């Protein structure tokens, strides 16, 4: 399976290199890097499709300031050690802007190479918070929310909308749940609030009444839970059994209809964050239909984010009128773009403003947007 894909890619790269030399400098070179083969190819290939669709449309309309966009597609198989080679290759081929990489690890490995070459990199899917927050990569932007955005959304909602100050943070000791709980804790402390309880529970245990009692005793007004729905529904059920009406806030691992089905009437009033709903956004519908028309099936993972990244890059190139990094960044921060993930612009650190999570609440057996 691997070999044919590699061969096709190689062929594509070679043909593109030939095309490049033929067309000389009259094109804008857009690198597309990510996993295009191997285990994680399903994360990377939708991005290639999205970028192709957007650039084909731009090129058909005469390009940007008369320049056609030319794609340089490179595979990094989501491996950091390969990603550095991919980046070096793209830089030496003269890429002006890069869309990618897909995985956080590979992105982090490749970024210093682009940074030293002053090339703008826009990732559709790398969610590691430090990529934007460390300040080490001024040339980096992304069209997906960072991992800690969800925790911030939950904490902000608890503090501002629910007006609580005593918060217990519970997690399931897993990568996802504990990570979220730790982000929530750090963010809460940065606001000068100490949580009343921070503990992990064992997933799959037969009974959570001891921890539920501990929450009760801590006088918490709200519980923030990091983890998935099976434990969340057990904890919520036992809280209600103990006649506690403490607010329960959780993450998109709980924003699942199974949670409502299993927790039944006890699910009512539970808050959970989830990605913004874009299914009625005309840009999203158009992007997905374009994919269906071109490839005959529904788009895969991160397609919307990748489509948004491509649109943002095209808009920035048009507004800036050059491929200079500072001009591009300025254009991205000053202008908004309508994309499949919503109307977005970019913050100073490269995170997209307008992409992210929103709070849902269970009402009458369904999740509805809270507020």
């Amino acid at each position: 399976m691997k070999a044919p894909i590699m061969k096709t890619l190689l062929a594509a790269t070679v043909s593109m290199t030939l095309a490049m030399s033929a067309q000389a400098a009259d094109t804008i070179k857009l690198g597309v890097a990510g996993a295009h083969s191997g285990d994680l190819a399903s994360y990377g290939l939708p991005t290639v499709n999205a970028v192709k669709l957007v650039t084909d449309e731009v090129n058909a309309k005469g390009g940007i300031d008369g320049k056609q966009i030319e794609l340089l597609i490179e595979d990094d198989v989501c491996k950091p050690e390969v990603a550095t080679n991919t980046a070096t290759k793209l830089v030496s081929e003269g890429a002006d802007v890069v869309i990618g990489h897909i995985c956080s690890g590979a992105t982090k490995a490749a970024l210093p190479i682009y940074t030293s070459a002053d090339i703008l990199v826009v990732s559709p899917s790398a969610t590691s918070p430090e990529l934007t927050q460390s300040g080490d990569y001024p040339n980096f932007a992304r069209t997906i929310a960072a991992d800690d955005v969800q925790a911030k959304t939950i904490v902000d909602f608890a503090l501002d909308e629910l007006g609580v100050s005593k918060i217990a943070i519970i997690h399931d000791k897993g990568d996802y749940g504990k990570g979220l709980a730790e982000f929530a804790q750090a963010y809460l402390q940065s606001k000068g609030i100490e949580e009343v309880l921070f503990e992990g529970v064992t997933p799959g245990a037969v009974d959570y009444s001891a921890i539920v009692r501990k929450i009760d005793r801590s006088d918490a007004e709200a519980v923030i839970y990091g983890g998935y729905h099976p434990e969340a529904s057990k904890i919520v059920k036992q809280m209600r059994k103990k006649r506690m009406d403490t607010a329960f806030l959780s993450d998109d691992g709980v924003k699942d209809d199974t949670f409502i089905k299993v927790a039944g009437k006890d699910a009512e009033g539970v808050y959970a964050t989830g990605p913004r709903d874009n299914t009625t956004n005309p840009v999203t519908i158009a992007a997905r239909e374009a994919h269906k028309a071109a490839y005959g099936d529904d788009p895969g993972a991160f397609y919307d984010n990748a489509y948004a990244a491509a649109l943002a890059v095209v808009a920035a190139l048009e507004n800036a009128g050059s491929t200079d990094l500072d001009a591009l960044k300025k254009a991205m921060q000053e202008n908004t773009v309508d994309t499949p993930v919503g109307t977005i612009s970019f913050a100073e650190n490269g995170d997209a403003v307008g992409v992210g999570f929103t709070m849902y609440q269970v009402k009458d057996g369904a999740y509805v947007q809270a507020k």
Partner: protein
Amino acid sequence: MDYFVELFFSGLTRGSIYALIALGYTMVYGIIGLINFAHGEIYMIGAFTSFVVASVLSIMGLPLLAIIVLAGLAAAIWASAYGYTIEKIAYKPLRNAPRLSPLISAIGMSIFLQNYVLLAQTSNFLPFPELIPDFEFLEPIAHIIGTTDIVILLTTAVSMIALLILIKFTRMGKAMRATAQDKTMARLVGINVDRVISNTFIVGSALAAIGGMLIASHVGQINFYIGFIAGIKAFTAAVLGGIGSIPGAVLGGFILGLTESFATGYVSSDYEDVFAFSLLVLILLFKPAGLLGKSSIEKV
């Protein structure tokens, strides 16, 4: 003080859940010296059976009490059939094999049953109906102990006493004790050893199935994997109390449940397993046969 009482009762509930399942482990071990790792799966199958039956009956609009009784009966019978069949398929042919063989066979059976239910039913969590209603008169102490907790506690106590009576005072119990002491000798005096072993599996499986129904109703959800963790904890409880001893299994269950509950309450739930298993190691260091187990000389 209130907090202590609350933690005590929550530990007691958890402990009786472990004890109900541990009884099956300890009975089988007492008779044929085998750790029946598929026992946790029997518990899970019991929970699934009662789920199906209770769902159907509640659609038919039967009163709650009838649903509990019929679902419990159906679960006990169905799970007993599984227990009986497992013994015949996986353990009986290996009765004279080295000790390790039936153990591996048991682990294989456990994995098989998990995946069988996964394929035949679903991998999703299913909402289990609340079979035990909240009694009005318990409302003032609902924050300390709920109706389900009381039902689980009582069921465990009743099961333990009934089992003790069965073993001490009935013909079948006498046959069981004889088989446990010496299989060959029991056979010589005319006891049908195979039937005694089958009976043990049937009784143990029925108990696990009823436990499965009660616990599923307590936590409100089931899936194909619930038997594994519950089984491991119950096995720990059985070893702690002295595997082979029936009061030992119940004592072990309570000690394990209370330790976990107090560890969560006074230290941190991050360490509940650490405390539980440290306690197991400590007890086994000083009493290698468990709290109530008889240390016997290995027959070679």
